[in-house]
């Protein structure tokens, strides 16, 4: 009898220990799968044209990678293994010319470019021939195909007008269909700029997702017609990184949530900002893999800091700190 009591006590202590160990593991994230990205060697592209001046956006079609280069005023084309194929556009204001291209996507077999400082969307075919486009009343930032017939164009609000919208949907002929997501405004336009920085990711059927780079732990899911379908609360283990920002109202703590993001096979890849010198935030070298319910599935460790990326079929196409193209296998 005495022995049984001792055994019960020992079993209780062991069970308690197991519970504490499990809680500690959950708190430190030990139960999360951590995996290392495997780098795919990119061919040495000898041509000067292949050098990326300021790569700001990436897009893929069945066999090509497109990178909008804002500095060179061109869209550069690569194979999916990173071999340079050529470029579209040149600096200027005329047809086929670009001024600070800031977004690129593929819609209906055409390459669609956000021609920022010309306030227009321009289309090209795969040989670089212009295929028309349309003017818009603001400087477009990113452009993303919502199926073959619609384009989502994002805007950076100027902060000088009330009621500016971050999202604008057009048909491919340039007719406005919908606009939404009002810019956040306060007495501090610089702080507002950070609060209004977004990343958009395509869904499977003309829907799309909006991720705020700071301040919110949610991903907004919109239908192609602009209906907010559901906010997705992201797992707290994908942690905010904070930065103290001096504003007109004193120091405000900015919660950095995401530096870059992409979506592939119903999974989000969110790269959290990384603390620099104790007070600044910069691009990170990990990507959290988040499922459609916001749960953290895995953390992928990357061999370098990445500024922007997209992921397709488990392969990440990323821009590194030097503005170079890097390719990693990040899927299981």
């Amino acid at each position, binding site marked *: 009898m005495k022995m049984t009591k001792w055994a019960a006590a020992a079993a209780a202590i062991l069970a308690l220990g197991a519970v504490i160990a499990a809680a500690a593991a959950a708190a430190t994230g030990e139960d999360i799968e951590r995996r290392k990205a495997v780098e795919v060697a990119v061919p040495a592209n000898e041509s000067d044209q292949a050098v990326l001046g*300021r790569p700001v956006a990436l897009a893929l079609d069945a066999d090509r990678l497109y990178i909008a280069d804002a500095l060179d005023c061109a869209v550069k084309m690569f194979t999916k293994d990173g071999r340079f194929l050529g470029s579209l556009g040149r600096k200027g204001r005329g047809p086929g010319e670009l001024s600070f291209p*800031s977004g690129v996507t593929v819609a209906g077999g055409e390459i669609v470019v956000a021609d920022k400082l010309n306030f227009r969307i321009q289309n090209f075919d795969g040989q670089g021939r212009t295929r028309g486009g349309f003017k818009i009343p603001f400087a477009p930032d990113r452009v993303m195909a919502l199926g073959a017939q619609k384009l989502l164009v994002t805007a950076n609000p*100027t902060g000088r007008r009330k009621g500016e919208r971050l999202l604008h949907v057009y048909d491919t002929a340039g007719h406005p269909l919908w606009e939404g997501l009002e810019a956040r405004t306060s007495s501090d336009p610089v702080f507002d*700029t950070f609060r209004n920085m977004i990343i958009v990711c395509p869904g499977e059927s003309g829907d799309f997702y909006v991720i705020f780079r700071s301040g919110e732990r949610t991903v907004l899911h919109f239908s192609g017609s602009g209906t907010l379908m559901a906010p997705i609360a992201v797992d707290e283990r994908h942690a905010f990184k904070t930065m103290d*920002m001096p504003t007109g109202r004193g120091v405000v703590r900015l919660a*950095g949530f995401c530096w870059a993001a992409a979506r592939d096979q119903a999974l989000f890849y969110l790269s959290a900002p990384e603390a*620099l010198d104790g007070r*600044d935030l*910069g691009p990170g070298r990990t990507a959290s893999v988040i499922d459609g319910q916001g749960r953290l599935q895995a953390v992928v460790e990357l061999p370098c800091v990445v500024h922007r990326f997209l992921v397709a079929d488990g392969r990440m196409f990323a821009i590194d700190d030097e503005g170079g193209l890097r390719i990693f296998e990040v899927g299981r």
Partner: protein
Amino acid sequence: MRKLAILALAGLVMLTAGVSYAAGPGLNNQTDCNSNHMKCREYTLNIDAPWYKVMVLLTACDIAFGKCMLGV
């Protein structure tokens, strides 16, 4: 007498404001200020720099815009 002085002073202030406005940036100049401010912000947002640096650069854009509007 005091009322007259106040009215005269108010008139002087309004006249000065009117002259300053007329001598200040015209419509084209204001358009240029807006355009430069927009370009400054867009370049800053697309360099993908660390956020403290972006904050400083955006503040510089706003200061430049203010100076442009004042014709300084």
